[in-house]
């Protein structure tokens, strides 16, 4: 019986956090009406031999408990002393915010595009925003004085025979003039279109061009690369890609590319195609090469990924 009392007392002392609680424990066990005191009192009815034995144990326990209470008392007091010397803190209060900036959504998209294509062996290049008619149209097999040129509404610079690039495609010829296949590049960058603005059109937008040229690069390869890109971009294996016939003078065959995400609708996402032989010719290639090219709007990707419904929001800093 005294041992059970001891167990219980130790438990309570260990859990006690303040002096008030300790005092309560003292009263419960060792005080005038305490449990141990009562045990000691009840000894007087026993035989002397029993009284001696049990009395000894009970007294020992009493001493142990009162020592433990004393120790704990010291511990609590010492803790309190230290605290008292310091400024009091409420560790549950919220932390002070460290100012943290954020990247523009198009930058986030561009980084992902760069990373994914780099992982597939594509080099990443930059190109000029002010272009010549030669690189923006002529090298790309866009006939002069033909309605095909009207597909790109162009800003021209006053008194200069220059324009603002309408796509990132001028870098195709600029790069191929200096590099021979096999090659794999992407070119992200800002482009301009002379057009009225609305929620899906703006005078400037961000595109990235892709170009892969080799001996046997095929439409089948283009499909696979695009699908791989979107799987990684949306971090989902459930992405479908389909090609529809379309026309861009610098590719033949030319495609519109649609993608479909899990449970989603088909979305028209970019133009693509197999590089037109005249583009290779303009870049000075003599041998016959095969390759694909594509151009994708990063604004559109960001709108889909971050569910932004107005393209003009990209240029408002609020």
């Amino acid at each position, binding site marked *: 019986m005294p041992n059970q009392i001891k167990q219980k007392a130790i438990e309570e002392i260990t859990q006690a956090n303040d002096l008030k609680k300790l005092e309560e424990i003292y009263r419960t066990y060792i005080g005038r009406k305490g449990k141990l005191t009562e045990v000691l009192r009840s000894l007087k009815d026993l035989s002397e031999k029993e009284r001696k034995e049990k009395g000894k144990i009970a007294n020992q326990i009493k001493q142990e408990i009162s020592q433990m209470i004393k120790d704990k008392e010291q511990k609590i007091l010492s803790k309190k002393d230290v605290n008292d010397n310091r400024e009091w803190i409420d560790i549950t209060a919220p932390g002070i915010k460290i*100012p*943290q*900036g*954020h*990247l*523009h959504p198009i930058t986030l998209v561009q*980084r992902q595009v*760069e990373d994914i*294509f*780099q992982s*597939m*062996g*594509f*080099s*990443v*290049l*930059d190109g*000029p*925003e002010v272009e010549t008619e030669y690189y923006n149209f002529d090298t790309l097999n866009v006939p002069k004085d033909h*309605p095909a040129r*009207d*597909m790109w509404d162009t*800003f*021209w*610079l*006053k*008194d*200069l025979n*220059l324009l*603002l690039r309408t796509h990132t495609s001028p870098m195709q010829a600029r790069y191929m003039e200096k590099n021979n296949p*096999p*090659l*794999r590049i992407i070119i992200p960058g*800002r482009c301009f279109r*002379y057009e*009225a*603005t609305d929620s899906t059109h703006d*005078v400037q937008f961000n595109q990235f061009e892709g170009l892969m040229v*080799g001996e*046997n690069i*095929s*439409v*089948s*390869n283009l*499909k*696979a690369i695009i*699908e791989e890109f979107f799987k990684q971009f949306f971090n989902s294996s459930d992405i479908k*890609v389909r*090609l*529809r*016939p379309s*026309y861009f003078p610098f590719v*033949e*065959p*030319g495609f*519109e590319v649609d993608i479909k995400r899990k449970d989603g609708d088909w979305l028209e996402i970019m133009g693509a195609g*197999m590089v037109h032989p005249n583009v290779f010719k303009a870049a000075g290639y003599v041998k016959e090469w*095969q390759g694909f090219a594509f151009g994708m709007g990063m604004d559109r990707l960001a709108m889909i990924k971050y569910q932004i419904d107005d393209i003009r929001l990209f*240029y408002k*800093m609020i």
Partner: protein
Amino acid sequence: MKISYNWLQSFFEKKLPVPDKLADLLTFHSFEVEEIKKCDKDWILDIDILPNRSHDCLSHQGIAREISAILKYPFKLIDYKKKIKESKELASKVVNIKIEDKNLCPRYTSRVVVDVEIGPSPKWIQERLMTCGLKPINNVVDIANYVMLETGQPMHAFDADKIKGNKLIVRRAKKGEKMVSLDDEKYDLDENILVIADEKDPICIAGIKGGINPGIDGKTKRIILEAANFNPLIIRQSSKKIDLKTDASWRFENGLDSNLAQEAMNMCAYLIQEIANGMVLKGMIDLYQEKKQVKIVNLDTFKVRNLLGINIPDKEIIDILKRLDFKVKGIKDKLQVIIPTRRLDISIPEDLIEEIGRIYGFEKIPNQLPSAILIPSKKSEDLIYQNKVKDILINLGFSEAYNYSLVSNKESIELANPVSQEQKYLRSSLMPLLIKNIEDNKRYFENVRLFEIGKVFHLDKHQAQVVEKKKLASIISLDEKDKNSQEFYRLKGVVDSFLNKIGISDIWYDDAITENRKAEIKVGNELLGWVGEIKSKVVGFEIDFDKLVQLATEERIYATPSKYPAIVRDISMLVDYTTKVVEVLNLINKVGGILVRDVDLFDIYKGKNIPDSKKNLAFHIIFQSDDRTLVDKEVNELQDIIITALEKEGGWEVRKQNA
């Protein structure tokens, strides 16, 4: 173009798939059907015909041929020539046609129809025209339009009795000539515009718009029909000059098959004979000097498989080509494909491969990752540093802005065709729009920190060239309670910190620029940009990003740190409020010589115990040698020399010195 479903059906005996299904087939094999609309008992398919097929598919016939190839439905044209009952009188007696420059008009065909009864056209023609968005006028005009919508060949009809001298001349207009169109618009003409004229005046702007004078009206009896082929460039030029696009000009601009003219002419004459009870005169006037010939394209079927990445057998390739009405000759895998003149778009093997691919079905092409040579991918330094700098700045609490490259304030480069006054010039600095961002944001936040990396543009006047530069700009707006100077130093700290992080360390600030409260950021002798106060409570910097990349990527030589211990002495002095830190630094370095390894400013104090016109500067001076351990005595002597120089040369009061 708006295409009528029922009209398409009229080309085939077999029933067409339902409109939705048909639209899908066209979208995946030919052209995008943008919209399907029910219209009475008919459906309108709005089809987006792109410039490569405008020459043959801005017509119901063109679309029907596509359907025939996709669905393997037989397609046959009606021979209208056989159905015309010609009179004995010769058409060439009624009108004399002359082409002045056959380059501008490779072909001109005409027929004359007499005893015509002008009236409304039959209901079925009216309905089809309206379905396709045209307004019915009278039977002859409606038939001409109907033929255009069916064949793609624009037609024109003149009232023969209103033509002076019985002459039609295709020529360039003369400067000063004028014409009033059928819809009563006045046009000033010049030599850039091709016209059809009678003996005296232009009566039609060729391929674009007819004149009111020889127009068909209720009294018209004898008509001269025109189905011509004009040079696409002259039509495009004329159309731009008079700023008018019509159904006819749209088609001519894209180029048309010159062999289409007689087909359309016969159809038109036949319909007038049947519907307006006209009598077609004998013969078709046909000025056609260089008859267009079929093209032959050689095709290697291996290339078809290799480019598309599919295993399509020769037999299937040949079958598809035949369905497209191409004739195929040749042995085994080397084919000779004969292209009808109507397909102006096909001239090289790749063009045929596209035809084969789309009819076969692009959706059937499997995905196959390329097997390519392993080339390490590279990234331009520029983009690498762009990403690095952006990361550093966002960690310093700045958010990234994207602003327009086009601005309203005058700059050296102006757009020839701006969309608005707000966006008329190319920006030469990133700062103005960042300042505007701050103002816009002020309504919502007290403290705003922004940056942008982007291109700016300058004019090189000597070479009339545009200089395009990438810049980095950043801006901080302050709380009202903040001291400007505090924030100025903080921004300088930002510049130091991020330049250090990308490996540029020997930065100094040059106050040589005339503007107050602005300093140039320099590395050695190179100017990197500027930092300073922009206006009250707004500070910022702008840096030449290309130069930054150049400096950051320069080869750096590793300098072994000295093996011998450094000794640090602090020095503190009272200087005039306007004394620049750099003056003090320069003097310490000058008199200290090689043993002064570094001097760091660690405190600027102004306030209690300091007179208003003064401030206290405190520096750590680090003494170190590469070849020996410095002793206290030596350092103390050097320290004394520095103090003396500061007091004598600088005229500053050195306050304390602790060992």
